[in-house]
């Protein structure tokens, strides 16, 4: 490993945001793999929680993430956010605008936000996301949130990268047949109906709940939470559901003494 990389890793482990940011660029640009620059033992030691937030464009993912940051910071925990926006298929360029919703945390040293473009990957993600998650873990973040680019029905790659998947929808999302189809709703650990002040939001939420209740597989009943992210309404309940899901996974994890036989 060249000296300047070694120096960046040392800087990052000592808490330098500058070094972390530059290492993220290196893995994003495919110049280095995390496996080649980080000691593996270092990563296994800490308990961190990874959340994925996904859903169609404009559903309120960034605003919801910002609301969750407030909850997380209120508990004294630190957080890393990876916000993905699409690259242009025409020019390769991108406009990264998720940060704009998160302005109140720009100067909070316990909040690290990084905007990432898809750079030709599908699923509302970029192929460097797992490596960026690991860098944020090594940096010492307690919770990591990955906000995908806006997705449609079949972008489910986030599932394998995080512990809890939150699917954010709005009341215009369709009827119960839409949620019986395979795809996005299948990977949800928690469903959020955002903009719940809109007309027929209750009917929409109960249609989703109806479909989810006849398709229980893992023993986890997927909750449907109504939120108005922009007014901070429902975020606390959402965070409680995240904590419940975390406990559920810990209980049912192979090797856990509480595991159901």
């Amino acid at each position, binding site marked *: 490993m060249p000296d300047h990389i070694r120096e*960046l890793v040392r800087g990052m482990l000592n808490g330098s*945001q500058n070094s972390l940011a530059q290492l993220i660029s290196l893995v994003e640009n495919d*110049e280095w793999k995390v496996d080649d620059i980080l000691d593996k033992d270092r990563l296994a030691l800490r308990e961190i929680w990874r959340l994925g937030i996904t859903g169609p464009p404009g559903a309120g993912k960034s605003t919801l993430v910002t609301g969750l940051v407030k909850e997380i910071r209120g508990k004294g925990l630190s957080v890393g956010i990876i916000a993905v926006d699409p690259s242009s298929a025409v020019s390769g360029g*991108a*406009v*990264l605008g998720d940060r*704009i919703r998160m*302005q109140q945390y*720009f100067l909070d040293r316990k909040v690290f936000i990084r*905007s990432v473009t898809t750079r030709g990957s599908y699923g509302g993600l970029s192929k460097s996301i797992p490596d960026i998650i690991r860098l944020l873990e090594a940096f010492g973040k307690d919770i990591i949130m990955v906000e995908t680019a806006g997705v449609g029905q079949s972008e489910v790659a986030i599932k394998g990268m995080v512990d809890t998947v939150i699917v954010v929808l709005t009341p215009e999302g369709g009827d119960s047949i839409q949620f019986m189809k395979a795809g996005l709703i299948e990977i949800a650990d928690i469903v959020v109906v955002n903009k719940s002040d809109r007309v027929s939001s209750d009917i929409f939420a109960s249609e989703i709940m109806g479909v989810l209740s006849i398709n229980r597989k893992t023993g986890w009943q997927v909750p449907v939470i109504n939120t108005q992210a922009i007014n901070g309404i429902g975020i606390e309940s959402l965070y409680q559901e995240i904590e419940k899901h975390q406990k559920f996974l810990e209980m049912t994890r192979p090797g856990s003494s509480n595991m159901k036989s």
Partner: protein
Amino acid sequence: MKERERPIRILIAKPGLDGHDRGAKALTLALRDKGMEVIYTGIRQTPESIVQTAIQEDVEVVGLSSLAGAHNYHFPRVAELLAEGGNSDVLIIGGGIISEEDVASLKEKGIKEIFGPGARTEDIVNFIRQNVKRGGGQK
């Protein structure tokens, strides 16, 4: 190192109490169409928040827009804070309504170029490409 050229990352920000963001948005779109990754943080930013964003996003370029007259404070302060954090290699450019006298003094304080009304996007893009110094993670 990969063969494919990596996109230039640039932060477009509006410091101070200035709500006129049409120019900043137009430039953001133009740079996107030229293959750059543009982080846009919107209006009413402070130099501190701009620099913090520039660091976390590891941008190579910061573009500041001001049409409200406070550029003589905000622009140099961004340059100062970037330098304090060891990021003096980030290219800083500015735009907006800025007098010729001010342009000269801003250039002395680390703002590499100022683009006023009527500046062509091609010129801005070419200037960025020719003057950008660091490449993602490597100083």
